[in-house]
């Protein structure tokens, strides 16, 4: 039996990708439970901060998704850890402050459009936490993208935000029942209160991930953004 503290739930099309932290003696490392047939879960009824009991095969996935472990049985919730504590544990897991250190390789920019990627065989892992000096979310053609400055001063632009809770929050903000000018109201929130709420939070932290191969490359995405959004924020705009 393995105990996993769930730290990431990301959207992958109609399914979810899940990552948790496992204590391994003095170390804390990221583990991505996957089913025997897919890398994602069509239904994942748990939340971040849940500690789940599960059975995982001992073999790690191929680089860079070395965190993959096949789950051989269902999950059982054991207990729940509050958000600030989750972030505390994430600080003890994989973490880096500069672009080349994130995944242990050179990160390239898309030559024709937007986005950043790592080349095959180069990245050594597929998930990493980092501290940011600044972070901004923006809407672009129905998609939500993040731009952030690492503590090294390097700026990463146009990262897809795949964090399930944030994506749900954006969807809720744009839901038809919310009245007129929803896009403009959400943009106003993202340009003002969002900034204050996120960057002034004592447990602001992010984790960046690499996609599965897409056009043969591994693209950077914003997997997790702490603090998580609160339902009551929707009342503010």
């Amino acid at each position, binding site marked *: 039996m393995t105990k996993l503290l769930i730290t990431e739930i990301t959207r992958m099309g109609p399914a979810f990708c899940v990552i948790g932290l496992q204590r391994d003696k003095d170390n804390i490392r990221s583990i991505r439970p996957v089913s025997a047939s897919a890398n994602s879960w069509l239904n994942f009824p748990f939340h971040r901060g849940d500690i789940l009991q599960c059975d995982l095969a001992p073999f790690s996935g191929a680089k860079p998704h070395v965190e993959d472990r096949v789950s051989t049985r269902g999950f059982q919730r054991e207990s729940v850890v509050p958000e600030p504590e989750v972030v505390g544990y994430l600080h003890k897991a994989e973490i880096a402050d500069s672009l080349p250190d994130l995944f242990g390789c050179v990160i390239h920019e898309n030559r024709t459009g937007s986005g950043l990627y790592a080349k095959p065989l180069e990245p050594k892992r597929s998930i990493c936490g980092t501290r940011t000096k600044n972070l901004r979310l923006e809407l672009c053609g*129905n998609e939500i993208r993040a731009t952030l400055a690492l503590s090294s001063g*390097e*700026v990463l632009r*146009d990262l897809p935000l795949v964090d399930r809770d944030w994506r749900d929050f954006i969807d809720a903000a744009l839901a038809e029942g919310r009245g007129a000018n929803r896009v403009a109201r959400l943009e106003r929130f993202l340009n003002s209160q969002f900034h204050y709420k996120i960057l002034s939070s004592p447990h602001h932290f992010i984790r960046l991930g690499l996609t599965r191969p*897409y056009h043969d490359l591994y693209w950077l995405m914003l997997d997790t953004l702490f603090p998580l959004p609160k339902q009551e924020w929707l009342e503010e705009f």
Partner: protein
Amino acid sequence: MAPGKDENRWRGLIEDCFRREAGFQIPMPDSEQDLIETGVLDSMGWVSFLRSLESASGLNELGAQLTAETPSFESILHALRESKAETQSPGAGASHPQLVETRIPVLIASSSVALGSRRIPSVEIDRAFGMTEGKLQHRAGIESLTYASENENELSLGTRAARKALHAAACGVQELDWIIATSETHLSYPSLAAQLHSQLLTRETCGALDVGGACLGLLNGLAVAQSLIASSRARTILVVTADVHSRVFIPGRVAGELGGLFGDGASAFLLRTSGGNASQNAYSLGEFFFGCAGQYAGAIRVAQAANGDLDTHFDGEALSRAAITRLEKVIRETELRSGIALSSVNGVATHQPNPRLLKLLANQLGLPLKRFPKVAETSGNLGSSTCGVALHSVLQTAQDAPAGDCGPIFLASLGPGLLFGGGWLTPCHHLPRYEGRDL
């Protein structure tokens, strides 16, 4: 009703950007086709396509405008039409600079350069920096560097280039409304522009302005000068670059892999409204665009340490990758924005970090190397003056060509940050395209 000029140009721009994102093997989708739902693009491709379009059209909010719209060519066209309508409404002029018509053409009336008068073979530089002999030649492709002599500095080189440019255009210094100077090595006061002002004995009411940007300085200076002339606040402006690296990047202070790349030189450009006497092969400034690719910020940093030393961080490999990728991107974007095919340009005046990288860039772009004037190979990286010396060289070649037989010129440069900028020049016989230009 037949589609208008704008509509055709927008469609062309959309199709070009789509091709770049989706590739040439994908058939062009129908105008109203939902690109995501029909699987033509996925969400990553859609955003990337929109970002290309934003950058090519200068409409930075195009992506935001398309939120809650169907991802199709038709929605994009609609957003472009709306943007134009907004720009043309009273009081909306400045929000989308790329949509504002360039009404007053600005010409380069003359140009000149002044290189450091000592030419040093690169093996001597290898030795001075304690590197293996032949390293600069073999690794960077540098044959020699031009170094300032004892009695030369940024001011003397800049003054020499300025005087030659004024002379070439038969322009008296009293005609100058502004001197705009840029240098990455002149770090004292009075500033370089002020010193040039005194040295050239211009009118007291001639403005003197220093602009930064390091190797991007020339483009910054040209863009500022263009704005001053286009807004009728000036008629004649002298833009000067001058850099003397050989007194800053010295052995013992910086590594040879950095210091050994740089030489000394200056360039000067006289800019005027089209009312002046322009030669048949004179060039007019097109548009400029700028930005900062912060993901490369760590590749090069130079700062004055507390003890007076130079604190340099230089990751040669990262910087080379960044330079090639960005210069290529800027040149491709210049092609999209200008509507001028890269294959038709007379020359490309770029920053030249070193000759080896220039060769790589030419390969990436599929352009013959001869379209890039040789600067770094014989003089080294001249900082803000590299692009200036390259531009002067292309202008000189055009000057010697039969009247009317010269093509456009592309400009592209970079500075630490990673700052980037691009633009283009068109021969004056192409001038009508600037009247009523919309995108």
